[in-house]
């Protein structure tokens, strides 16, 4: 292990340990307590539900590592489902997929250029969120459309109760983690997140890194929309709205600091699993679905409060689980 991964990579994995423990415990408890949870159908639907969020959260995580935030991912997800379900080209779906990829990269790059030009990430992505939402609504003003049959077949392929899209999404998160922790691009990414000015003074190519980070986020969000079609079988110009908050929650649950530069993308896996698990258990228990808003909000607040209360560091048995955060007395400034 130690020979394969760099020291920084391993240090950055430490903040993800608490969420792994919590999530594994939650899965074990759910397995022990709930009979319907143990069925293959439920496992399949749980994993299928995780796939889009894994992709979107991976992109969101890359952006949050730079100290930014991407609020446009939800609209990009919607746009991708709409493009996938609109009749284009020869009906094989190739053109749809190509357009989904292009749209994601273009929107993400636009975000990146804006942020690199000095616009606050929040406002920049808020603005593109509106623009993309308008675009999606112009293409399709209500849910519907037809997905090319061959494309749908690929999106719903499954090995036993493990959907193909879940495995691919999992693979993408691992690749994204290696990209951000073991490459030169990744080192610059963390440097920008840790101190934008410091990175610039060290002559790192901060602007290029920012643009690539947002472009990746756009791309992963649009792929998340593509994968989502494998679950809903149609296009919907508003379906992605919840993904902005959910992806941010998953990333922060995964131990990535909202100020940037700390944490590891691998933490997204337990983060997404925990969110999916809560939704899944509430569904199985037959609880009114609107309670999910309340649980999601509470999880986000509790997680952030715990990470903050841990302050500089969290030690278990002498092992530092959270890296130092430095003193941040500011009662305010958003990311």
């Amino acid at each position: 292990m130690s020979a394969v991964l760099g020291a920084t990579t391993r240090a950055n994995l430490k903040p993800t340990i608490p969420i792994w423990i919590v999530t594994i415990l939650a899965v074990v408890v759910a397995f022990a307590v709930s009979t319907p949870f143990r069925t293959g159908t439920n496992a399949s639907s749980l994993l299928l539900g995780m796939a889009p969020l894994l992709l979107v959260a991976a992109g969101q995580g890359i952006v949050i590592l730079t100290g930014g935030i991407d609020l446009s991912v939800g609209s990009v997800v919607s746009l991708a489902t709409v493009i996938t379900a609109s009749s284009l080209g020869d009906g094989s779906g190739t053109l749809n997929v190509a357009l989904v990829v292009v749209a994601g990269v273009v929107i993400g790059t636009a975000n990146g250029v804006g942020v690199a030009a000095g616009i606050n990430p929040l406002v920049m992505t808020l603005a593109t969120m509106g623009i993309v939402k308008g675009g999606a609504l112009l293409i399709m003003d209500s849910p519907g459309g037809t997905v090319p049959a061959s494309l749908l077949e690929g999106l719903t392929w499954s090995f036993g109760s493990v959907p193909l899209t879940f495995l691919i999404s999992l693979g993408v998160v691992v690749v994204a983690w290696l990209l951000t922790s073991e490459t030169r691009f990744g080192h610059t990414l963390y440097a920008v997140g840790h101190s934008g000015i410091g990175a610039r003074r060290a002559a790192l190519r901060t602007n290029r890194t920012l643009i690539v980070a947002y472009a990746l986020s756009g791309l992963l969000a649009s792929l998340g929309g593509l994968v989502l079609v494998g679950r809903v079988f149609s296009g919907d110009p508003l379906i992605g709205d919840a993904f902005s908050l959910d992806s941010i929650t998953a990333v922060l649950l995964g131990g990535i600091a909202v100020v940037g530069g700390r944490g590891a993308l691998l933490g997204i896996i337990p983060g997404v699993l925990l969110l999916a698990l809560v939704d899944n258990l509430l569904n199985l228990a037959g609880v009114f679905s609107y309670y999910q808003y309340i649980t999601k909000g509470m999880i986000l607040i509790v997680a952030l409060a715990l990470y903050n209360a841990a302050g500089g560091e969290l030690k278990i048995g002498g092992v530092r689980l959270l890296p130092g955060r430095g003193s941040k007395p500011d009662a305010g400034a958003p990311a």
Partner: protein
Amino acid sequence: MSAPTVTPPAENPEATTPAAPTRLQALGRHRSLGVSYGLALLFVIALGLTTKNGFSPERILNIVGQDAQLGMAVIGQAVVMLSGGLDLSIGPVMNLASIVSAVIMDGSNGNIPLAVAVTIAAGGAVGVVNGLLVAKLRIAPLLATLAVGTILQGIYYVWTEGQPKGNVAPGFRAIADDRILGFLPVSIVVWVALWSLVAFVLYRTTWGKGLYATGANPRAAWLSGIATSRKVIGAYVIAGMCAAIAGMQLTAYSGAASVNAADSYTLTTVAAAVIGGVAFAGGIGGLAGPFAGVLVLVFLDTILETLGVPSATQYIAQGLILIIMMLVSRRLNRGARGRDDA
């Protein structure tokens, strides 16, 4: 300032005393005010040109009066942004206010005072929660208010089961329908009154000066003896109350309580504040700019409606204006503060 392409070094950010703006800051503020009002004027002209009889003051007052709730909600958003924060729970608070007020009124004019009092108190209570999460638990404002907004959404969806609830008293609709002296909508009067009250607190009290100082540099403000937590919590309370009043105005206008009518207001308030020159970094801007920001957004929507373009285009137009205004205000504020990476 002679080399605009190079980032000004972040030496001594404390050197600019936020309580007494430097000449450069004051200049930046006036220039960005000029831009916001210039844009608003441009849009009034465009509005007038799109239809026959477009410049009739009565028509313009009606258009503005119909969207007074946006203006009321923006006041709170601007105060929070001045404190260095952000309130993404404004839409949910407005929906909550709409439901709470309609349920308490229950169709009877006699219940209106109680409904108004309880609703404003509820908005203030949400503000206290937001403020405590931000100031005491040190959760980033964006996330704290997003989470609180989501929880509120869950609460009123569970409470109403997603259906309209309550019954608006006939007398309550006067805010939306009545005209003072036959031409001035009551909603505009309420809006201006709320604006004046908050402006007084912000500009003419030590609390307001402290809020500006806290937003511009929380550390420096804290070191100079300002109770920064109270300023931050107070800002969110003002935002919650303004959103509650805005929610009631929306209810009066539409005549029914709704669980989702105000959803879009969260983001339009941010847009209006930004167009009005309120900076995300905190401590820059005021309440006059957002007033123009509201006019810009309202006129823009009306122009697009008059032109008969699909309503989805409004999202696109708002997004584009937001980006352009950010680029402009960034240029104007450059050099007004030492710190460049907000």
